[in-house]
């Protein structure tokens, strides 16, 4: 088990999400940057769907109560183990009463902590991913104790890297959304030539961009939306839906982020700049 000494800004348990319940209006959820979460699980030899801790912008302080092996991936948050700096994307042995601390994100904004075998919080609707109104808690809090199966077996040196540009890159690879063809040529050009900045309205549900363009389209009859759907609101804003998004919406869906673009955007914070690049 591991005890939360400091909770950080927004920390939660996530796996690859709650698949198969969208028809009940249940969001997919799951690690925002699934590629980073997957990387830490892969390094530990875990099931890809093993639950990890996701930290956002400001990390946690944790005290381990049993031995295990961990791996940290995603944004660099100056992690230390008992006061000594430790590396990302590397297996690290943990003893009972070890203290693991994280600071603020240097590059990117979401960091993942995986533990051998995964964290064992309760599964609700086939997933451990936190979501208010589905799971008991929506964030991890000081004093919480999170279970895992203690183990120190088969420790071997193992090391891997994400594509080096995952944190620096600003190009979001996108597909045309279902309503893309309703846009005029000038509107399409604007989408692909503009540099967009992430607004302060960004969270696990959606990222709103600052730049606007007068919206000439009528609302659509409510239809499904997905993580990565770019909606164009009546006041001209672009809203990019993320992992905790609702399942249906009525705004035109003009673009659809690729899976890798969702992961990339998940590491962006307010004022970061992004561009769209068409895949089709």
């Amino acid at each position, binding site marked *: 088990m591991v005890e939360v000494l400091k909770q950080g800004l927004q920390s939660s348990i996530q796996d690859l999400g709650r*698949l198969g319940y969208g028809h009940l209006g249940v969001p997919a959820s799951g690690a925002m940057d699934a590629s980073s979460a997957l990387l830490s699980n892969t390094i530990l030899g875990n099931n890809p769907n093993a639950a990890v801790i996701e930290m956002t912008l400001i990390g946690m302080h944790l005290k381990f109560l049993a031995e295990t092996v961990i791996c940290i991936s995603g944004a660099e948050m100056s992690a230390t183990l008992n006061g000594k700096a430790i590396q990302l994307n590397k297996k690290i042995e943990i003893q009972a009463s070890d203290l693991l601390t994280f600071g603020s994100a240097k590059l990117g904004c979401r960091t993942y902590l995986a533990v051998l075998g995964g964290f064992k919080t309760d599964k609700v609707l086939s997933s451990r991913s936190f979501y208010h109104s589905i799971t008991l808690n929506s964030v991890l809090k000081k004093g919480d104790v999170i279970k895992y199966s203690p183990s120190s077996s088969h420790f071997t040196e193992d090391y891997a890297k994400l594509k080096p540009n995952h944190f620096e890159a600003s190009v979001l690879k996108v597909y045309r959304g279902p309503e893309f063809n309703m846009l005029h040529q000038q509107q399409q050009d604007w989408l692909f030539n503009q540099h967009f900045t992430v607004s302060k309205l960004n969270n696990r549900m959606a990222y709103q961009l600052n730049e606007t363009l007068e919206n000439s389209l009528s609302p659509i009859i*409510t*239809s499904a939306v997905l993580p990565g759907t770019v909606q164009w609101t009546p006041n001209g804003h672009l809203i990019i839906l993320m992992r905790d998004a609702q399942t249906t919406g009525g705004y035109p869906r003009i673009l659809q982020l690729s899976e890798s673009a969702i992961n990339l955007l998940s590491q962006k914070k307010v004022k970061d700049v992004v561009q769209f690049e068409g895949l089709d």
Partner: protein
Amino acid sequence: MGAFNLTYKAFGERSILVEWPQKIDEFIQKDVLNFKNEITKNKPKLIVEIINAYCSLTIKYISTIENINDEISYLKRRYSACSKSQNTDFKLWHIPVCYEREFAPDLTVFSKLKNITIEAIIERHTKPKYLVNFIGFLPGFLYLSGLESSLEIPRKSTPEMTVKKGSVGIGGMQTGIYPMNSPGGWYVIGNSPLNFFDVNQNEPCFAKPGDYLKFYSISKSTYQNLANKVKNSSYHLEFEMHHG
């Protein structure tokens, strides 16, 4: 044979969007549900979720769709095989609603804005059988159609920060029940003591697209009584089975 000319398009790398003529219409809605049931009956393993709305189906695959044209041809064949004589059993759910003042914060203002007496509002709201079109917006939020046109009202210009769980509201041409506390812009005219979304049940939502709901008015004391029964799991949902 499927009855409509449908369009099929890729929606990102993992989904296919199937669209009917874009209107809210009971005949279209039933055809959408018919096709959804047809796919669900014999669902390829790679399909993980099928989300229907009024006039669309979004079919989600477990990972990147390797060959979109093959998948679309497959879906087209399944639609052609849809027979009109499909099993169209549905349930009509009877939903208790308390329209008394403390459960209906907006009923008085609604009555003034629409110039309809509170009694007439309740009578018109409890009269129709509402079709469950789909579930979206929030876990367990049912999109219902069939609201009497005299009760239509534009949404509030400023949404409320918190609409209480169980609130029965009217917004635009729609009526619905908030399954949990949520921000919302509909006029709240009553409250139902039932759970519309419960993760502890095998079926977290009792109502399904294709079912119907009918509201009936209950007193405050009945509300409390039913709320207690719901709380200690001794409440039995009221429904009638209909064979289509």
